[in-house]
């Protein structure tokens, strides 16, 4: 009974959050599409895809960029602004759990990233001319990567002192997760220190898993990547749920 209530409340809160895109949907979808597409074109125009393997790297990297953009940057900024305006107060006085709200916020932002990676997928396939496999394995990889990203975005939002700080931190985070991680390149091609840094970053495992599923060649490391993402998503979710303060001290 309690579990049913939890899922129902999460669904209701999710629907409440999704309604936000009635007003912001067009612009957020544009941003969600433009950032990864812009990055994809930049790379193609400067270096191009040198091999099929490189093409899969670029494609998976851009899907990760799309997820980072919506699940870390947009979500972090939204929660930071909501926190500053004491927006949590409305939910805090309703009989709902923090986990329900966190899942609803994350879910709505994951949904927001859909247009971005669909556009990247279609255009990447069209321009790069590689065969891509969109199946359950791909969606599982995207979902787990997005969940981890959204936990980080939520964490930024709830720990920032105000909306402005959340904006700054999420932009820095975007830079760190996109350019200082093996998103567009294999981890082996990075300097040693960044290889170590890459090993503790969820985007590394997200990009690996998405790349493997797109190429349609799930290898053993694919399952390991998913397992690591699942662990990271669970830990960060628990951490975030604890971090949201319903009650002031």
């Amino acid at each position, binding site marked *: 009974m309690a579990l049913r209530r939890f899922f129902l409340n999460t669904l209701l809160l999710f629907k409440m959050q999704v309604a936000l895109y009635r007003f912001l949907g067009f612009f957020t979808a544009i941003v969600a599409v433009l950032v990864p597409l812009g990055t994809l074109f930049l790379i193609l125009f400067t270096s191009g895809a040198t091999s099929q393997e490189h093409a899969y790297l670029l494609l998976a990297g851009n899907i990760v960029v799309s997820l980072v953009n919506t699940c870390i940057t947009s979500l972090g900024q939204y929660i930071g602004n909501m926190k500053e*305006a004491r927006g949590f107060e*409305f939910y805090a006085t309703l*009989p709902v759990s923090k986990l329900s709200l966190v899942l609803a916020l994350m879910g709505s932002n994951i949904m927001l990233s859909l247009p971005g990676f669909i556009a990247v997928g279609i255009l990447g396939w069209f321009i790069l001319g590689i065969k891509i496999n969109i199946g359950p394995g791909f969606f599982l990889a995207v979902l787990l990567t997005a969940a981890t990203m959204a936990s980080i975005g939520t964490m930024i939002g709830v720990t920032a002192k105000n909306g402005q700080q959340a904006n700054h931190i999420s932009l820095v985070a975007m830079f760190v997760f996109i350019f200082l991680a093996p998103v567009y390149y294999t981890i082996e091609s990075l300097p040693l220190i960044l290889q170590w840094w890459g090993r503790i970053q969820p985007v590394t495992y997200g990009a690996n898993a998405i790349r493997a599923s797109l190429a349609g060649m799930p290898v053993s490391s694919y399952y390991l990547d998913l397992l690591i993402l699942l662990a990271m998503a669970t830990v960060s979710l628990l951490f975030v749920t604890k971090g949201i303060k319903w009650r002031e001290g």
Partner: protein
Amino acid sequence: MQTAIEAIGLSKTYKKNDVRANIDLNLQVKEGEIFGLLGPNGAGKTTFVKQVVGLLKPSSGSLRVLGEDVIGNPDSVRSNLNYMSQNIFAVWHLKIREVIEYSGRLRGLSLGEAKKQTQNLLEELGIEEHADKAIFHLSGGLRQLAGFGAAFIGKPRLLVLDEPTSALDVARRRKLWEKVRELNQKGGVTVLLVTHSVIEAEHLLDRLAIIQDGRLKAIGSPGELKQKVDNRLRLEIIPHNGGLPAGLTRDLSEVGEVFEANNRVVVLTSRGTLQKAVGLVEKNGLDCIDDFRIGTANLEDVYLKLGGGVLGAA
């Protein structure tokens, strides 16, 4: 009658600026009563309310709401308590109908029941024509009404309203007070109300507490407080063009306590000297007043006497 809220030695100090917002508060709100909290700005009323609804952690003392320890388990009271948040920023994008309906569903109503109650509330609050407008498109008053709808829906045992009518016109205020009374009398809902509208509150409240500088100054029914504080008669004078002549004010202060409230001059005087006060007005002030009336001391007098604002010395 059971206790809905029981605060014992409740204190709250904000660590950030070391402000003591509540100091050793002891009060009980009984189940089924409409209880008011009155006091000037910064008195500590909202701090108390936020502790009751579990949004703020007390620094010391104990606080039980509907039999549950809110300090140890702040989540425990939420399923039986509806709080009208002053802040609906979080749902600025939702339509009024959605805000009310979702609030009902999150409080455990079925879809059918939530829709039915939402429709009734929209009609009762007179906002049906705005029901499908988003919160951020609305005026302050309509937003407040939407907040009311979200607070009223469900089957609460305790309704907490923090300055709920500050943005409303007189007609809508009356409608709201009627709804609050109806919920209390027909539904047995206990109401904790913070308001600045002392005169309106007088007709609504069963009991009230006056808080000033974080401390409880008085508690009781409006009648008890009026009697305790003042059993004198009240001569209320409405001057035109900026007040009474200084000479008249001085003369009146010799027969009673004189102070200003809401652009009116009030003289609180004993039954024996009322005639003298009226005589003074008749003799020296009829040309410079719009109206005057006689009655017993009201809650506003009690509030001002306890909370300051005295103009002349008696």
